[in-house]
C-alpha cells in the first residue's frame, strides 16, 4: 500500500469529523502569518453555518486590518467608516429586527475613534453582536499606539514605550461597557490554543443566540496578537500576549444576564 492510498483510505467519508465551513470563502486572506483574525473569522463562519442563519446575517466591517473582512465570509456585508460600525448596525438591526447583525471591530476602531458609537449602541442595548479584536496596536496603518496599548509597549508612535503620564492608560473596554445597563453579555476571550478557540466559539454562539432571543447587545472581546506590529514571531507573540496582555486584560465573562 502506497502512502497516497493509505491517506485516501483515511480521509474516506465515514472518517470525516471536521470540514471547512462553506460560509468561509476560499479567497486568499491578506492577514499576516500568526494573526488572530483568521481564526476568529472561521469561528464566526462556523457559528453562522451551525445556526443556519447565513441568509439572515449582516456583518459590519470596520476600518483597520479587518476592513476587507467582507472578502472572507459569504454573507451580506456593510463596510463602515472608521469607528462607525455600531451606528450602521443600529439602523440595520432596527429596520430589519429579524436579522442577525454583528460588528467586527479592532481596538483603534472601537476604543478610539469609535468610542461614542460603541458606548451609545451598548447603552441603548441594540440587539446586535459586537466582536472586538484587541491586539493593543493599529495594525493596518503600520503599528501605531492604540488606546489599548500597554504601558511601556513600543509602537511606531510610542517608540520609547507608551508613557501613560502623557498618553493615558490602556482602556479596558469590556469592563467599561459591562457597566452599561444595555449590555447583556460581556466576555473576554482569546484564540491561541484549541481550548481557547472552543471557548471563543461558545461565546460567539451565545452572542448570536442572544440576538435571536432579542436580548440586546452581546460584547465579545478577543485578546489577539499582531506579529507584524509587535515585531515578534507568531510563537513569540502568543508568549508575549500571555505574559503581558492577559494580566492586564483578564479572560473570562464579566456579565451574562
Amino acid at each position, binding site marked *: 500500500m502506497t502512502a497516497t492510498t493509505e491517506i485516501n483510505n483515511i480521509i474516506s467519508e465515514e472518517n470525516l469529523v471536521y470540514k471547512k465551513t462553506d460560509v468561509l470563502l476560499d479567497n486568499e486572506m491578506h492577514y499576516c502569518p500568526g494573526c488572530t483574525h483568521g481564526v476568529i473569522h472561521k469561528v464566526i463562519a462556523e457559528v453562522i453555518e451551525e445556526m443556519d442563519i447565513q441568509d439572515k446575517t449582516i456583518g459590519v466591517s470596520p476600518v483597520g486590518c479587518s476592513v476587507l473582512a467582507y472578502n472572507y465570509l459569504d454573507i451580506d456585508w456593510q463596510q463602515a467608516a472608521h469607528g462607525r460600525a455600531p451606528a450602521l448596525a*443600529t439602523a440595520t438591526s432596527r429596520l430589519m429586527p429579524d436579522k442577525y447583525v454583528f460588528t467586527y471591530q479592532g481596538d483603534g476602531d472601537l476604543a478610539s475613534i469609535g468610542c461614542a458609537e460603541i458606548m451609545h449602541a451598548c447603552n441603548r442595548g441594540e440587539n446586535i453582536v459586537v466582536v472586538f479584536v484587541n491586539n493593543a496596536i493599529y495594525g493596518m496603518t503600520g503599528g501605531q499606539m492604540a488606546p489599548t496599548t500597554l504601558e511601556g509597549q513600543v509602537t511606531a508612535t510610542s517608540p520609547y514605550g507608551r508613557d501613560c503620564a502623557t498618553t493615558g492608560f490602556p482602556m479596558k473596554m469590556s469592563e467599561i461597557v459591562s457597566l452599561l445597563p444595555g449590555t447583556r453579555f460581556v466576555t473576554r476571550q482569546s484564540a491561541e490554543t484549541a481550548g481557547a478557540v472552543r471557548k471563543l466559539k461558545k461565546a460567539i454562539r451565545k452572542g448570536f443566540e442572544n440576538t435571536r432571543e432579542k436580548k440586546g447587545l452581546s460584547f465579545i472581546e478577543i485578546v489577539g496578537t499582531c506579529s507584524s506590529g509587535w515585531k515578534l514571531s507568531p510563537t513569540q507573540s502568543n508568549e508575549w500576549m500571555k505574559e503581558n496582555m492577559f494580566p492586564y486584560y483578564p479572560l473570562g465573562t464579566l456579565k451574562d444576564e
Partner: protein
Amino acid sequence: MGDVRLMKGNEVIAEAAIRCGCDGYFGYPITPQSEIMETLMIRKPEDETGMVVLQAESEVAAINMVYGGASCGKKVMTSSSSPGISLKAEGITYLAGAELPALIVNIVRGGPGLGTIQPAQSDYFQAVKGGGHGDYKLIVLAPASVQEMNDFVDLGFELSFKYLNPAMILSDGVIGQMMEKVELSDYKPRWTDEEIEKISGSWATNGKKAGSERNISTSLDLDSAKQEVFNHKLQAKYRAMEENDVRFEKIACDDADYLFVAYGSSARICQKSVELAREKGIKVGLLRPITLFPYPTIQIQEMLGQVKGILSVEMSAGQMVEDVRLAVEGKVPVEHFGRYGGIIPTPEEVVEALEEKILGK
C-alpha cells in the same frame, strides 16, 4: 384638494417623510431644525407606518445610521443644520462612494464655525461642490416654499433611488421656521420586503439569498485601476443627472432686460423685487434654480441673447454667483448681491443693488 394645513416648514418635512413611506429617520438636535425630529417624536410613526425614528448620539452617528439603513435598501433620512452637516460630511461622501440612496435635509444657518442660528445660504459650496472628500456630487434640491418642503421629500427619495446617490434638500432657517399653507401629500405605504427585493435586490445588504451572490455595501477598492473605472461610472451618472433632471422656474422672464438668479428664500425675496423694479420701469425677470446640482446652466445661457446683465442674489458672500459666471462665460456682466451672517435682505435692497451694480454699469 387633499389635506390642506397651515404648517411650519420643518414640521412639514417630518409629515412628508411619514406620508411618503420613509422607513427611518436618524437625527441629532440642532437649531433651527429641531422641529423635524420633535414632530416625528410626537407623531410616533412607528405605531402608524412602522417608520423608525431615533435620536442618535451625534450627527456623525446619525449619518452612519443612515448609511446602515440605506445599505438595507430602505428609505432613510436625516436632517441637520450647517455645523451638523459639516460633521455629516464624512458619512455623506461614504454614501456617495457606496452608491447609496438617502435623503439629507439641511436647514442652513449662518457660519462659519458655530456662526449664528439665523438663516443663511452660505453652504451652497458645501452642498453643491463637495463638502466631503473625493469626486462626488449630491442631488441638491432648493425649496422656496413650505409646499416645496413637502414635495421635495418624496422627490428627493425618488431621485436618490433613481440614481443610487444621496440627495440633499438645501433649505434655510427662513423656510424651515416659516408657516404657510401646504397641501400635504397622500399617504404611500412603506415598501414591503418583496418590493425592496425587486427595487434594490441586486445591491441591498438584507441577507444573502440562497443561490445568489452576497451583497457588499462599500466605498473601498484598493485597486486603482478599478477605482478609476468606478469614478468614470460616477461621472457618467452625474452627467445623466445634468441631462435629465435639471429643475428650475422662470418668473417674468419673457420680456426681461435683466435677470435675477436666486434660489430658496432669496428667490422669494426676488419675486417681490421683480414687482418693485417693474413699477420703476426696469424689466427684470427671475430665474430660480430648483436643482442646485444639476445646475440650470443651459437655461441661464438661453437668456444671454436677451438680458444685458445678471444679479445673483444669495444670503452668502457670493457662492452660487460662480456657477452663474461659469454659465455666462463673460458674455454679460454678472454681479453678486448678498446679506449674510443671518441677515435677510429686503426686496428694496435687492432692487437698489440691481440699479447700482448692473444698470449703473
